[in-house]
């Protein structure tokens, strides 16, 4: 799997929204999508196995399946959503980056606040 452009001809144009000026590109086998699909299946199976076969437990398990979930985002973003491609300034990367940061802040912050100092011995 080299660059997306190599596998997909001109079609990276669209990923980032250059849907306009439409001209069909020549046919290629959708390698990138197939690889993405296989990877996503793999990650999912791993997560399932880790939980159902009790490879780990407690916090380590949570950490592992969260990491697997994050990898899934990466797969979707790069193999299906063509996240980094296209012309022009890549403001959408910034937008999603912020969203990710605030997601962590809001979820983490809420959990921290709502635990009411549960772990705080005083």
């Amino acid at each position, binding site marked *: 799997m080299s660059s997306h452009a190599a596998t997909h001809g001109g079609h990276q144009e669209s990923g980032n929204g250059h849907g306009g000026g439409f001209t069909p590109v020549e046919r290629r086998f959708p390698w990138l999508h197939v690889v993405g699909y296989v990877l996503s299946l793999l990650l999912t199976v791993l997560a399932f196995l880790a939980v159902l076969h009790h490879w780990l437990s407690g916090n380590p398990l949570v950490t592992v399946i969260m990491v697997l979930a994050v990898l899934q985002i990466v797969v979707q973003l790069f193999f299906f959503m063509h996240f980094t491609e296209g012309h022009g300034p890549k403001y959408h990367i910034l937008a999603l980056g912020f969203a990710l940061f605030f997601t962590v802040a809001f979820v983490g912050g809420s959990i921290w606040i709502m635990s*009411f*100092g*549960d772990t*705080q011995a*005083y």
Partner: protein
Amino acid sequence: MNGNAQFLVLNPAGPVARIELHLIVVSIILVLIIVIPVMLLLAYITRRYRDHPDNTAPYMPEWSESKLLEIIWWGIPVAIVGILGVYTVYDTFALVRPPMKSASPLTVQVTSLNWKWLFQYPDQGIATVNEVDIPANRPVQFVITANSPMNGFWVPQLGGQEYAMPGMAMRLWLEADKPGIFYGHGGNFTGRGYAKMAFHVVSRPQRDFDRWVKLVKQSSPALTQSGYQQLVNAQSNTPTLLFSSYPAGSFERTIRHQGGMYMQRDLSIINADR
């Protein structure tokens, strides 16, 4: 609550309120270090650089950068926030501990009801409404909850407030270091009767407090289970009431029922009091 004590927050009657007042004073001084120069500078600049023909002040329309100046006004606020931050963090952690380590604390359980305050004394077995009596010079551990919408428990002269929340047992340490009657009020809006949810804290020397407890036990009626339910359901304000006893476990049951069972911390606070 005589004339000179009207600025309740500025007239603390206990160590907690005093710590808070100290921080308030520190913060006022620190922000004034900024505010006053800003005001003076503003007055000066708008006067000096007014646009009239015979103004001789320099006019430099292109001058718009100065590293030095900018360092100054990033730097000074950083310093002030730094200093204030240290005080704040220190006091934040200090106030979760009892104000005075030596004396053994008194525990009072506080419940916000619509629209009155119920106080239960687990060690004395008595209960009061809209008045809470405490011994002076002894730390009091208020354990606060609500059997009503979220409220706040606030006695300005003794110390700042803590929310009274359904399903939560919140601990608030207060202490009065002199006898007196202190004004308290609900701190968070709970509906129609909220405006009249005032109560009084009566602080007396320990001996008088003990005598008062004895008196209540002898001469006041008991708060029965149905009486308790009536208080909860009444949806009205009530005058001050005193009870020689209250239904055992009503405080814990209320908290548990409303979600306390999910909070490790609540369970430990409730259990520690038993």
